[in-house]
């Protein structure tokens, strides 16, 4: 890709900021400091963020708002929830109403409270899992890129190829049956499985950076591996990795929700959206008689869907921005 861009003078390279163009060399002679060219004006981070937000499409703004609300709910769950996470009341399957806004579940726990705590548990667990996946996959991916085509790179890449040859939900099911289904196992298993995807991306984007002359210059200077990784490579692969983090988070979030829905993910009594859908799914049969009751399983499912939609909208916009015009 980039090769072809180099050969074809891209339109972008031909763009010249107007402010510089008029100063013909004339007879003043040449001076290095006065040299003009394709210079990009610098803006402060704040100005950039502000500019970005102002030009953001409504979908992205919507996504940002939703994400902020979720974070607030996750942080302040105990303050916002009317009842405790696992507090049990006498009436199970209570209808929607004054006392229990969205009714109660099969054990008599308040649905609304569990939804709010679910923001903390489900989102929190998915976030932690994604972080671990990024630390493992990102670290190994960059290392493999530096060791390009060396034994370490080959070993890691081939292992990842094999791990990725098994669909990850299936692999997760196998591993959960081996090690038993509990939250800690779930986090570790999903993090390790998902780190293979992160590895691929991190390796690919790092490879583009590793071939840069400035990395070679650092090696020629005698810099240690860690310095090269941390100072030369990492800052330059952050934008694609940030976007990837959003996508991976969605994927992890959906996988954990799916596993919990299947009953092998996050275990009771922890309030979790995936499990909540499973527990209340039966109510959907009663749509004719009590519409609100039938909507109960849709609430946690919609909570999951809404967050992934929001993250995807933001990532989509971020990708669009960081790739310039090229869609």
């Amino acid at each position, binding site marked *: 890709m980039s090769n072809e861009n180099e050969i074809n003078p891209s339109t972008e390279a031909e763009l010249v900021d107007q402010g510089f163009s008029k100063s013909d060399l004339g007879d003043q002679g040449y001076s290095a400091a006065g040299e003009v060219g394709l210079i990009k004006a610098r803006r402060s981070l704040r100005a950039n963020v502000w500019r970005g937000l102002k030009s953001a499409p409504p979908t992205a703004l919507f996504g940002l708002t939703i994400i902020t609300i979720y974070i607030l709910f996750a942080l302040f769950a105990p303050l916002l929830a009317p009842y405790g996470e696992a507090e049990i009341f006498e009436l199970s399957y209570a209808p929607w109403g004054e006392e229990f806004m969205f009714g109660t579940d099969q054990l008599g726990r308040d649905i609304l409270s569990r939804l709010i705590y679910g923001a903390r548990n489900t989102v929190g667990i998915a976030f932690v899992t994604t972080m671990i996946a990024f630390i493992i996959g990102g670290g190994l991916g960059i290392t493999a890129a530096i060791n390009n085509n060396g034994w370490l790179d080959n070993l890691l890449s081939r292992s990842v*190829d094999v791990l990725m040859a098994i669909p990850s939900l299936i*692999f997760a099911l196998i591993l*959960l049956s081996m090690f038993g289904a509990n939250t800690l196992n779930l986090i570790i298993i999903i993090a390790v499985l998902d780190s293979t995807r992160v590895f691929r991306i991190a390796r690919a984007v790092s490879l583009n950076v590793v071939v840069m002359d400035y990395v070679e210059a650092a090696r020629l200077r005698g810099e240690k591996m860690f310095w090269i990784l941390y100072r030369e490579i990492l800052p330059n692969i952050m934008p694609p990795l940030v976007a990837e983090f959003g996508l991976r988070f969605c994927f992890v979030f959906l996988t954990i929700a799916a596993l919990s829905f299947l009953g092998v993910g996050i275990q009771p009594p922890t309030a979790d959206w995936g499990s909540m859908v499973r527990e209340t799914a039966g109510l959907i049969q009663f*749509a004719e008689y009590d519409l609100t009751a039938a909507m109960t399983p849709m609430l946690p499912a919609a909570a999951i869907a809404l967050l992934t939609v929001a993250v995807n909208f933001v990532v989509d916009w971020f990708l669009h921005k960081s790739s310039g015009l090229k869609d």
Partner: protein
Amino acid sequence: MLHPVVRTILQRLGLGLITLFVVSLILFSSIEFLPGDFGEAVLGQAALPETVAAFRKELGLDLPMHERYFDWLGGILTGDMGNSFSGRGSSGGTDRSRPVIELLAPRLANTLFLASMAAIISVPLALFLGITAALYRGSIYDRMVNAMTLTTISFPEFFVAYLLILVLSSFTKLFPSLANIGPDVDFWERVYLTALPALTLTLVIVAHMMRMTRAAIINLMASPYIEMAELKGASKSEIILQHALPNAWAPIVTVIAFNLAYLVVGVVVVEVVFVYPGVGQLMVDAVTTRDVPVVQGCAMIFAATYILLNLFADIISIITNPRLLHPR
């Protein structure tokens, strides 16, 4: 000297076999990780020590590992995947457990039926949407299709499934919400019963496939030779048919294979929602009860399908690559 195409295909086949082999190793070793007292767990607390010992012997846990592996692998290749753990008599004597293959075979047929139904609708639809969106990039049509598919891929499968149930089953009574098909249901009845699960899968897959197709086509249309064709005065349809399409097979087939492979995964959740008697549901049940032989059998089938589909995509891209077809 082998033709490079043949050579590359053989390489890929070899690689696929090696992957399958490694997968089988991983699956096999899953039984090793079971806790020491799993015999009791399977047979029940009241099981006699002799029964437990006999059970361990039946599993061959007294034999060296490599020997057991080849026995197991040989079994799988000949269609013998061992016996299920469930149904083992707890009080000795009567063993009501069934061979895994017996459990699996009818369910595999069901799963394949469901997946094919979803694929038949989704592949042409997704290609059509993806290609048209790429060609009319930036248009209102493109933006609408994009926003819709972005929303759909963000939905968990069970959300889509329950939405459809709510609308098409609970309210309108158009379709049944459970797809609990028996063995002697005729074809059209089967299609009717499977409609909702198939529709769920279709919605999810179309979104993914459409987005990937669109990206692949846009990437292709950015090639310098497409601009050259434009500068040679080719019309839009000529550019697409003569210049883009011959180079588009590889990316498009890759997208299709990737998504059919994704279907394999999606099927698990959808089967559970609709109580559809397929391999996915069997596997989930087996995982909850830690019925290892059944998990192994199901996982092997899923993994093999996945690997074969990717292999197929690889081979298509190889045989449509002019560099390999016409070596220097």
